[in-house]
């Protein structure tokens, strides 16, 4: 019975967007463009009117005011507040950041070598920071160090844009340390240009009764590699990672999360989702580790993939390593082609097959978006996914009729023969 309740709670974690609320927010928020203006436009704005002109311009374009803009490594502040910067070559950067000290973190070492600056966010009390990370044709890696004081509540929103393609690599590194009873929500929205390559690294330690939630939306780029490791180190602390990947046209996602329960009564939760079409691929692995001594802890891994065609591919790998007996742990993993019964149901309500496919993909990803608590970012992410999906090609070839994937034959010739499935249909 207890286990069933546990399962139910885990499932209820995936709440949906309250429709009316969303409609209301949409009414009062601008219709903002997802495609960012070219870097050259940004530079000319700065040349003409300084940083304030760039902030005004971007606020208008995005419908959201950034606090900090990283323009290919150069930092501009709107409201400096709790963000400052460290020279990556300085001695203090070595004592502050542990990202590149581990020999295994080759990329972190590379990023540190090529970063122009390290952003440091020192949260105290309740705060919200929007950081716009803008990579040019040769993007500079970005490092953000977050230190949250005791009892603080920080929402850190990062928006990634990059014009770099081919060998150019957009690097995004985050390191988080919390004080006791603090809460951090890190929302990373990836809307890089088609063809951009991204490497993202997250390390975080949740100390005494604090929590870290990392929500990652991958809706751009051509190749994205994310490595996330969160450690619930404090007694009763919580860590959570929610990833959603949207592959429209030949994108590749390589996403690995590592959640560690190091102390007693800690909670870890990982939810990964991917919608793939047009030859996109995803490799998604979650490793949950419950250390010896982490009594009464629990860890949940949920992975789900939705495939729209035979050219797309997904590997979902849940993995658990448990060194303590008095714990609760659950993992689930499922991937499937889009359901013909779901499509039929939508069609009986007058919705075209194309629109049904759009809605199902949208809904699938929105479950992750719904976990973002910051409403502005939630609406931004929902609009981003909507815009990306609007550009998707749902008119897949007719030879997709197979046991694996179902496509309706909507041709006029369907008069004599409707479908050819294995269902008995009774």
């Amino acid at each position: 019975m207890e286990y069933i309740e546990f399962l139910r709670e885990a499932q209820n974690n995936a709440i949906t967007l309250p429709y009316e609320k969303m409609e209301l927010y949409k009414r009062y928020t601008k219709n903002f463009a997802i495609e960012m203006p070219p870097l050259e436009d940004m530079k000319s704005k700065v040349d003409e009117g300084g940083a304030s002109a760039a902030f005004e311009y971007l606020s208008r374009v995005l419908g959201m005011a950034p606090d900090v803009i990283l323009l290919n490594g150069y930092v501009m502040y709107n409201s400096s507040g709790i963000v400052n910067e460290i020279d990556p070559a300085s001695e203090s950067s070595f004592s502050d950041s542990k990202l590149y000290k581990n020999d295994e973190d080759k990329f972190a070492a590379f990023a540190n070598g090529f970063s122009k600056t390290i952003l440091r966010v020192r949260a105290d009390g309740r705060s919200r920071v929007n950081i716009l990370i803008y990579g040019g044709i040769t993007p500079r890696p970005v490092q953000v160090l977050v230190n949250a004081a005791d009892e603080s509540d920080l929402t850190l929103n990062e928006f990634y844009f990059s014009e770099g393609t081919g060998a150019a690599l957009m690097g995004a590194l985050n390191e988080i340390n919390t004080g006791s009873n603090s809460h951090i929500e890190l929302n990373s929205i990836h809307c890089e240009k088609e063809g951009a390559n991204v490497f993202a690294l997250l390390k975080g330690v949740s100390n005494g009764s604090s929590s870290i939630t990392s929500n990652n939306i991958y809706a751009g780029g051509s190749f994205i590699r994310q490595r996330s490791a969160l450690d619930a180190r404090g007694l009763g602390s919580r860590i959570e990672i929610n990833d959603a990947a949207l592959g429209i046209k030949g994108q590749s996602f390589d996403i690995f999360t590592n959640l560690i329960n190091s102390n007693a009564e800690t909670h870890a939760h990982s939810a990964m989702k991917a919608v793939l079409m047009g030859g996109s691929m995803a490799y998604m692995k979650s490793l949950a580790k419950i250390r010896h001594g982490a009594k009464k802890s629990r860890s949940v891994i949920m992975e789900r993939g939705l495939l729209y065609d035979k050219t797309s591919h997904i590997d979902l790998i849940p993995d658990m390593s448990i060194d303590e007996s008095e714990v609760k742990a659950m993992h689930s993993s499922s991937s499937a082609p889009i359901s013909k019964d779901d499509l039929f149901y939508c069609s009986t309500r007058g919705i075209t097959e194309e629109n049904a496919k759009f809605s199902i993909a949208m809904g699938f990803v929105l479950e992750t978006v719904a976990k973002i608590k910051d409403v502005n970012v939630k609406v931004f992410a929902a609009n981003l996914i909507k815009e990306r999906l609007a550009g998707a090609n749902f008119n897949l070839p007719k030879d997709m009729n197979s046991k694996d994937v179902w496509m309706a034959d909507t041709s006029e010739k369907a008069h004599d023969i409707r479908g050819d499935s294995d269902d008995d249909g009774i």
Partner: protein
Amino acid sequence: MILEIKDLHVSASNKTILDGLDLTIKQGEFHVLMGPNGSGKTTLAKAIMGYPGLKITKGDILVDGKSILGLSTDRIAKLGLFLQFQTPVEIDGVGFVNFLKSALESIKDETLNTREFMTNVKEYSAALKMDKGVVGRSLNKGFSGGEKKKAEILQMALIKPMLAILDEPDSGLDIDAIKVVAENINNITKKNNQGLLVITHYNRILSYMKPEFVHVISHGRIVKEGGLELIEHLEKKGYEEFEKA
């Protein structure tokens, strides 16, 4: 609207399920289709709506004299046909109300006023005694059996089809809920002059409704037709005599 089913033969996986079925339903009429398990009731409902997993080998389905066999399901729905599913699918992340609005806008081919639409949703969901929280959830996700059935009737109320096929609207409902659902179906169909085909095994829901035509299906064809007296007969004797026929 007139729905005519003529000599319909349907198979799936090389197995014949409907074997020469004839049925005509006019707008405003109330028909009931009863029959034992596996007789082809749900197959008929799905075949009318153009389920792609079924093969129509012979016969025709006509709406107002025109065949609908070549039409896609969404176009059949736009003609004014509605199917209430026996077991509606659950779709993650697609908000129930959002879906409902999309469905209505597709069928009406116009953008709805959100405030007016929400007023209608609230009015009908209150009449169906639905939990307020249900409409804020994902489509049928986590709904109980009764909530799913009520959600289907709510969709019918808003879409206002000319002819609705209700596939076991009573299954999964408790005694009180059956009465609520039946009363709502009566009110909605009367208000909209809607044709109705109710598919059911049992007469419980029919005790709250007044069907005009009763059809018994067995082995994929209509084997007996009549009025309310036929329901009473089935209640006493069962389907055995028809299965032998």
